[in-house]
């Protein structure tokens, strides 16, 4: 197809190929279809898949109990109170939505940049985006206190004369998340159409033929279908790239628009975009490293892909380091004594381990990725990625909790301790993320077959 990605690059040549030289379009199709359709019968899914699903469902159960108790008892079961009225719910929302960004950066931004390595990763990355966005969307609704009235967020004609306050970043956030989640699902599904058609045509079992046939909607690969497909996909990518930047800028403005200490800064929109890129690339690499051997993707996801992702992780870590430095600079260069007091509290106070953990996990450890040998060593890269995700969570904690706990008025200082219900809800969303992703891994091809066939060219 003329999506352009890699069309002018021989991806199977060189010392470090993007695809192993012996691979052909036919072998690619065969390998991916066998992994998804499992025509040989046998176990419905590999043992590792069942084990991971079992753990994920246990976590989902924990989250379900937590939500049920929340609906019964109300927000009082959480540790949030005055002055820390935003706790785990908002920080987990921001954390998950940042994780979701990685897929969009890879699938849309690097599509526009014509990066050929992106083709092997975009389906996996976009699938991770969907699962993370699903988890993110849960928290603001639960935080409402009366989640059954979530539709009040929509600006709709009503008898109460109620309109959203359009000058508030919190309202911008609603539109941003609505657009981002909707567009991400549609972009993912549109890119999947040709592969669903392939699975439909290769399926042996009746239920698979019906399942993939309905999802493929009748895509048959006619010249007319392809002629319009390429331009639409290209424009979608061109829209998704600025969309993901706008979403994280608006999330940053949720905080910058508030007068709380440590928040009221024009630096926040790019700060949040950098953080989103860092956690997004970390989750892709974290999942890719074990999934590559598990699904037998080595011929198509080579060391070069791991190397590129490691470089991106390092680059985004350096961007985040710049944001942290500017945060310190603007605090101590600025006129606000309360900001400086709060920052000293971050460095030495009750939550100091959170701040220093953020620095170590997001900035210090990723510097190991300067060395290629380390970038290609999964035993080192995997803990770095896990550390980055934990570090980004700690960053959200220190932005939200330490700022609210140490405001301008000394009489309003307080502290926040999450309860077991908040921890169990976080575990529940991790389980939900894993469950959704495992189901996608099982039923959806994790390689974009149509795009990769175009890269491999016309062959047997």
């Amino acid at each position, binding site marked *: *197809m003329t*999506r352009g990605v890699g069309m002018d690059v021989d991806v199977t040549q060189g010392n470090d190929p993007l695809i192993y030289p012996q691979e052909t379009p036919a072998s690619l199709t065969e390998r991916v279809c066998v992994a998804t359709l499992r025509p040989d019968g046998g176990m419905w899914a590999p043992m590792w898949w069942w084990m991971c699903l079992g753990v994920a469902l246990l976590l989902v159960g924990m989250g379900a109990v937590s939500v049920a108790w929340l609906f019964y008892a109300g927000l009082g079961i959480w540790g949030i109170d005055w002055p820390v009225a935003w706790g785990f719910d908002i920080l987990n929302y921001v954390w998950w939505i940042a994780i979701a960004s990685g897929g969009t950066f890879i699938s849309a931004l690097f599509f526009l940049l014509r990066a050929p390595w992106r083709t092997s990763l975009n389906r996996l990355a976009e699938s991770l985006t969907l699962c993370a966005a699903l988890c993110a969307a849960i928290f603001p609704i639960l935080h409402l206190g009366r989640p059954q009235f979530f539709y009040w967020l929509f600006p709709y004609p009503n008898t109460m004369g109620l309109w959203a306050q359009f000058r508030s970043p919190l309202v911008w956030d609603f539109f941003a998340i609505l657009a981002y989640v909707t567009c991400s699902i549609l972009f993912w599904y549109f890119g999947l159409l040709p592969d669903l058609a392939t699975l439909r045509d290769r399926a042996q079992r009746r239920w698979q033929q019906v399942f993939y046939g309905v999802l493929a909607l009748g895509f048959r*690969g006619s010249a007319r279908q392809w002629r319009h497909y390429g331009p639409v996909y290209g424009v979608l990518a061109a829209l998704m790239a600025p969309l993901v930047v706008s979403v994280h800028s608006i999330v940053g403005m949720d905080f910058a628009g508030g007068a709380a200490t440590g928040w009221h800064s024009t630096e926040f929109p790019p700060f949040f975009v950098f953080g989103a890129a860092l956690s997004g690339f970390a989750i892709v690499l974290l999942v890719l490293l074990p999934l590559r051997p598990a699904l037998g993707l080595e011929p198509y996801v080579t060391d070069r892909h791991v190397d590129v992702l490691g470089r991106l992780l390092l680059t985004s870590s350096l961007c985040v380091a710049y944001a942290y430095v500017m945060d310190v600079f603007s605090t101590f260069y600025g006129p606000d004594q309360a900001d400086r007091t709060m920052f000293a509290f971050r460095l030495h106070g009750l939550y100091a381990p959170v701040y220093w953990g953020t620095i170590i996990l997001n900035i210090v450890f990723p510097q190991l990725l300067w060395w290629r040998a380390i970038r290609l060593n999964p035993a080192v890269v995997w803990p770095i990625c896990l550390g980055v995700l934990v570090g980004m969570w700690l960053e959200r904690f220190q932005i939200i909790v330490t700022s609210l706990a140490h405001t301008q008025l000394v009489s309003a200082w307080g502290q926040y301790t999450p309860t077991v219900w908040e921890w169990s809800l976080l575990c529940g969303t991790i389980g939900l993320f894993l469950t959704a992703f495992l189901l996608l891994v099982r039923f959806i091809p994790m390689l974009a077959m149509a795009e990769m066939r175009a890269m491999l060219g016309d062959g047997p």
Partner: protein
Amino acid sequence: MIVAAFATESAMHDAAAELRRVPGCAVETYGATQPQEEGAWSILPLVMLGGGMMGGLGGFGMQAYATTISYPLDIGGRPDFSWPSYIPATFELAVLGAVLAGIFGYFITMRLPCLYDPVDDAVAMRDVMAGGHVVVACTGDMSGVREILARHDPLSIEVVGS
């Protein structure tokens, strides 16, 4: 209709090009990747531009109406028509409108979903999305078309439908 499968994309295009010169013969090609076509053009990017403009203008209008006519709020003494604050939601709704217009415009233009088409009855169609190359010709002159297809070394030729 006559359905012919070919081993290579170039053979398929050569056969299709020759068939298009036959009067009254409707020709369509099928393949697993997008064919390289000179001068291929799609109206859907323009449809997406229209959808984006509708989404953006609709979003801006909704905010302007709400804050100046329906429910003006005094926020820190700012004017009711404080348009810079409308921009984020306007942008998000413009993107949403463009994406919806593109996806659903594609479905409408391609008449999808279409879960059955007479061409599906051809055995050769089962390999299209796995790397096959197929030409489908609808014509009254079956023997003439079959003769043209045969000149391009097809893997198979089938007659399906009425």
